[in-house]
């Protein structure tokens, strides 16, 4: 069989995204990365929440879950623990990841399961029509901040690194090739990979098309920090418009540790005999 091409990872669903939306570039990059990694679609699961960005699973030819707002990471966590053999990708928005799903984000990072999490950060709520998000720049007027936003934007990669991220990178939707390379590395990374993707919303932040594009800087390969705190500094630089991989650490995953700590216990009480043994313990415990 001929190797799969990027287009083979596209489903038949037509994206509902507005023309020019950054998320097209992310879809493009995803399919390129999948093809490069030669991932069989049936071994792939794309999990999302709710939002423009979270429509992603529908457009990828693979298994997928279009979940509820903010809860993509727990769904992906359950799936990956149940099926470590699958490649599980999480594709969510800044609202999903950093606002309503912020707690899951912190804890998923900390847990370091082998998941790849792409956040399509358009610095706004797209699907609900332009409300402030946790990454909206200070002072910006949005439909819920008519007098200007007064909450300093979160620095998502700094947060991820503070929570113990073992892979933290930033890409941009308008550079799908580079982004594909980042995604590829994220998937290859054994552990939780955070990829913050600048993915402009052309409708509710039309200024971002140029504002972001014109101000990005890049971290060179050679600069890649080996120290978590230095990596944070880099990730926060230029108001979060610096692109590249900020930090990579080889650390055992949650699954590795689960396996290691429970190995001795495994298969001790299987089958009906195991059940009888458990009941016996209860009975004894009560005596």
């Amino acid at each position, binding site marked *: 069989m001929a190797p799969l091409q990027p287009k083979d990872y596209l489903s038949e*669903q037509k994206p509902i995204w507005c023309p020019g939306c950054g998320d097209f570039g992310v879809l493009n990059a995803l399919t390129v990365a999948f093809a490069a990694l030669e991932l*069989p*679609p*049936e*071994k792939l*699961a794309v*999990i999302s929440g*709710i939002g423009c960005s979270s*429509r992603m*699973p*529908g457009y990828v*030819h*693979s*298994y*997928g*879950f*279009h*979940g*509820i707002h*903010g*809860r993509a*990471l*727990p*769904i*992906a*966590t*359950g*799936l*990956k*623990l*149940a*099926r470590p*053999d*699958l490649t599980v990708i999480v594709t969510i928005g800044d609202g999903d990841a950093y606002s309503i799903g912020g*707690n*899951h984000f*912190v*804890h998923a990072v900390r847990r370091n399961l082998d998941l790849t999490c792409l956040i399509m950060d358009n610095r706004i709520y797209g699907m609900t029509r332009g409300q402030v998000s946790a990454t909206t720049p200070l002072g910006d007027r949005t439909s819920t901040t008519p007098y200007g936003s007064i909450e300093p934007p979160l620095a998502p990669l700094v947060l991820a690194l503070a929570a113990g991220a073992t892979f933290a990178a930033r890409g941009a939707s308008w550079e799908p090739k580079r982004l594909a390379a980042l995604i590829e590395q994220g998937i290859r990374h054994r552990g939780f990979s955070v990829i913050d993707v600048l993915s402009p919303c052309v409708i509710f932040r039309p200024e971002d098309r140029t504002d972001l594009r014109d101000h990005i800087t890049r971290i060179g390969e050679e600069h890649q920090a080996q120290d978590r705190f230095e990596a944070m500094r880099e990730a926060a630089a230029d108001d979060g418009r610096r692109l590249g991989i900020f930090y990579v650490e080889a650390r055992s995953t949650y699954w590795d540790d*689960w396996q290691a700590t*429970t190995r001795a*216990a*495994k*298969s*001790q*009480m*299987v089958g*009906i005999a*195991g*059940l*009888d043994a*458990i*009941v016996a313990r*209860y*009975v*004894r415990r*009560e*005596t």
Partner: protein
Amino acid sequence: MANSWSDCMPAEARRTEVSLAIAGSGGTGVMTIGELLLATAASSGLYGLMTRSYGPQIRGGESACFLRLGRAPFDKQADMIDLLAVLDWHNIERFQEELMLTPGAWALCEETETFPRPELVQQAALHPIGWKVLLAHVEGGKGRLSALVFGTLCHLLGLPRTAALKALADRFRDHGDAAVEANSRVFKAGWEWAAREWGDAPFGIVGTGALPHGACPPASGVAPSPVAIGPLPGPQARGQTPRADAQKGVSPPASPLPWLLTGNQGIVIGSLVAGLDFFAGYPITPSSEIMEELSHYLARREGVVIQAEDELAAVNMAIGASFGGKKAMTATSGPGFSLMAEGLGLALMAETPFVVVDVQRVGPSTGIATKTEQSDLWAALGSSHGDNPRVVLAPSSVRGCIELSIQAFNLAERLKLPVILLSDQFLAGRTETLDPVPLDAIAADQRRLTDEVSASGRRFAAWDEAVSPMPLPGTPGEEYIAESTEHSPRGWPTSSYQVHRSQSMRRLSKLEPLSEQEGWIEFLGDPAACLGIMAWGSTGGVVREVVHVLRARGTPVKGIIPHLLYPTQPKVMQPLLENLDTLYVVELSAMQQFRHYLQAFYRLPPTVISIARAGGMPFRTAEVLEAMKLGSEQQIAHSEDL
């Protein structure tokens, strides 16, 4: 010392059961004594039920346990206490509400302690004992008050000494031989002192190792519940061990080793039998025990347990694991259940099966974490926005916890939807003696996958019984998206009202076969009676006992305990209600959630009377009987007028 009571209870009451309470402050070993008694009784052929009560301090505070021992299985506590052992009087007033003493009950206590709360034991005969002195005379006796009291009580109860010593040895085995021996010595001191003082077993039960004779102790005055819980046949599974076989195995075997289990432990056993692979949860009293036990055992059975960051995560992790092809569960109590509302809707819409256990406690809000109530019913039926046709099951005994857990998984997997198992603190926290359940005889359904037939493009289409097979991620050609938004049969998002309408009807129709299936509604008493009494969950226990008492008095009565609350079962329930004039509805909910549920879904008899009150304490049998005699529930709750 002579007994201070004089009034003899009828012999048959005294012979079939006895109830006792043990109270004391932290470290005195209250629970240890209770558990030892239960185990000793069990190995002597006596059934038992033990509940526990704690003061607000997390550790080291006062605690009390309540035991009922007798010749038939119990699924409710005793109404009143025949025998009370007070290890110390510190804060005993905390248990005042639970400590209703039989007139003339015995209260044992340390003779050197001052006895500060006469009103607590005013109806009882006080038996101050020189425990401290006795202990001081036994080698290694220091700090072993519990073994001493255990010895005293074993004698009073007529429990066999060998069995008691065996139980003691089992309990302290891990503490080393010296501890076992010291405890045995202390036990014997307690036993012998009692034997000297009172002769043979004044609280003994007929048929126990040591037969009672001579003394005539008081009794709780309520007969035991002889009505066994009927087997709950499940729906026919496709291509599996026929369920009928499985259920036959449930009838009490003649096993020499009875089980002692809490309701939570029953759920652990049941879910493991059902083939649980994945558990995600967040601690909360009184459900935490389920997660804690599974943390031990699931890993040994190749499964995974994860403590999530919160209940929102827990429920969605379970859904994710289910999507991955695993049997998944979460367990929680009220506050956590409220947080799972949105997840329940997701599982319904995405048709990812899983089981959620809600161990109800007093609500609303954080309520009382350690006390029972039945007030999450409306939440179980109605929580989560939108039309959510889901399955709600409610066990009413520890055996029911085992059986319904298995059924919960079978139904979830078969119908591909969330199943709610409504337990409660009274079920969860009590230890029941029960006949062993032959676990290998109960069939666990396997998920219907796309091995034989492709669901490609039809994952959410109407199949036979409206339920399509579920592709297993990893299967080529079956890729699909589980969708939280309304979707076409193929699984694509839509805003078409026609599609929404047909998908809504399909989701509803998945429940239709179940709604007509026999075996979910327990029925007891006289089929032709005009008087009915109905309850659900742990309150089923009091209904069984009330039916027994009334019938013993010659009053025909019909008891009804539904174990499947949703879908409702009009075709099965309606005939049971047919010839009733009056129906008493007993529940621990001040809002009468069950009564209104019944009215919403069933045609009820002309007179419906609620015996409903807030929880915090399970019903006593006498409380229900009294409310029924009144003929109206005004003292308990609202009148029958709508």
